[in-house]
């Protein structure tokens, strides 16, 4: 694999032949997706809206919308088949084994509860920490995601924070229980580029330090290029290309991948500059 790849051979997430169907219209929305993610590995999924990226993520998390069902295929988390999970199994697994961060962090927090409480609550319920321990652990997590004033943020409400800060709180919540894999679905899309860089740096740090595996969904090829060992290109519910990120993004085989790259280059920074040329230091 790529130069990023010092990951182990433990397979954290294994997705095989997953098909997702709309029960009402009988339309097949995802037409057989297979991939696996090893410990400490980062896999990227790219594709336009409607390509099935987010549905695949939701199927993995067991949170597909009503009437949309996994029609075929298997999802294994640390070797356990999620199709056999009971409600309690899901409760045990979410946060501990698998966690997720989506776009628009504001809509995933309760607007009327202080942010610190929302995170420490999770730690009390799921880890059985005392009030005091939970608060200390929350402050540690806030510092770990580079929030500048953890004590202040602990006492703040959703409306008092910027999008970048909220996204960091959400990541702190997502990693609070030390999951094996984090799904980040367009998690940095709405952020300023400087803040996005800070969040991506943070994810890389978690991957290197704690061996966190990442499933990164983004329509920004440059973000994928920066973080991912492997990349999966989806179009209309199908995987059209799958391979090491460097190979897929630099010598794409499929016509659709080539189109995505040319679209990116047309109005991206790449059109203007080669990294070596920029004199910023």
């Amino acid at each position, binding site marked *: 694999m790529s130069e990023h790849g010092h990951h182990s051979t433990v397979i954290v997430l294994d997705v095989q032949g997953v098909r997702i169907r709309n029960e009402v219209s009988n339309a097949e929305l995802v037409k057989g997706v297979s991939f696996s993610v090893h410990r400490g590995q980062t896999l990227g999924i790219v594709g*336009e*809206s409607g390509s099935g990226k987010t549905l695949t993520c939701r199927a993995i998390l067991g949170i597909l919308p009503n009437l949309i069902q996994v029609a075929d295929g298997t999802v294994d988390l640390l070797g356990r088949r999620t199709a056999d999970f009971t409600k309690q199994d899901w409760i045990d697994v979410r946060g501990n084994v698998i966690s997720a961060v989506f776009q628009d962090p504001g809509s995933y927090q309760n607007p009327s509860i202080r942010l610190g409480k929302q995170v420490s609550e999770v730690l009390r319920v799921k880890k059985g920490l005392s009030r005091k321990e939970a608060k200390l652990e929350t402050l540690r997590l806030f510092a770990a995601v580079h929030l500048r004033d953890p004590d202040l943020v602990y006492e703040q409400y959703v409306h008092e924070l*910027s*999008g*970048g800060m909220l996204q960091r709180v959400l990541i702190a919540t997502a990693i609070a229980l030390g999951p094996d894999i984090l799904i980040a679905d367009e998690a940095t899309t*709405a952020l*300023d*580029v*400087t*803040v*996005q*860089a*800070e969040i*991506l*740096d943070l994810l*890389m740090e978690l991957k290197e330090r704690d061996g966190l595996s990442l499933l990164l969904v983004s*329509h*920004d*090829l*440059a*973000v994928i*290029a*920066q973080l991912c060992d492997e990349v999966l290109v989806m179009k209309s519910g199908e995987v059209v290309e799958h391979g090491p990120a460097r190979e897929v*993004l*630099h010598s794409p085989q499929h016509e659709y991948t080539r189109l*995505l*790259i040319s*679209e*990116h*280059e*047309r*109005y*991206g*920074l*790449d*059109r*203007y*500059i*080669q*990294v070596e*040329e*920029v*004199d*910023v*230091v």
Partner: protein
Amino acid sequence: MSEAHALLDVENIDVHYGRRRSKKEIIRSAGFQVGAGEIVGLIGESGSGKSTIARAVLGLVGVHHGHIRVSGQDVTTFSGSQWRDFRRRGVVQYVFQDPLRSLDGDLLIFDSIAEPLRIRGGASRSAVAETVRTYAEKVNLDEPLLQRYPGELSGGQRQRAAMARALITQPRLIILDEPVSALDAASRVQVLDSLLALRSDDVGLLYISHDLGSVAGITDRTVVLYQGSVVESGLTSALVRNPQHPYTRLLVGSAPTLSGTPLDRGQRSALRAELELLGV
């Protein structure tokens, strides 16, 4: 470009919200110009004051110091009736980030685009229909789409409909506030393509965005706003290749490209520390 020919001349403006102890300076002596035929990018992080400047140009927030001139007219001294007249003429048009919110969900796309003409009055039904079709064509909006509602269009199609509606008044200045931020890559390319196709000698475009990629992709000049002040401006190509101010260096250095980011993690955190020391 000389000030006499600037379509939009923002001269040393201050904007603050609140008063006395709760007074908050949002814009501090910011100045820049947009000439006819030019696409100028206004870039900055959220909270830097980009949209406040746009709102000041539209007369939606008051300017406490300095002047804003549109086609030579000082709009900062306008009375209420002067603003009404100015808006009715449609000299300045504004395109928002989310067209689903800015287009009336109960109106057909055709009617949304036609609305400014009907408000202005004086055109026959067939003349209005003809003009709507002409402008829809300019932004590559297929005719059948005109008979649909905003909810039935893709994000990119909606944004192009919003652009057609802005263009139909034949404005001198169009302000686009994050027009592609909510779109996926394919729609983004379509909208930016239409934007470039609209470039003409009589119109100036102010393109507001936090996305360096699209700013670098379509603008002639770029103005960098940081904490309410213009910290750097110049030809986009030069600014991207050789940024001067620490914020611009961080901005360019953070932007991912297919061949990596121009700065590594350590260099980025060093620049962040430098910026904090500056404290503006």
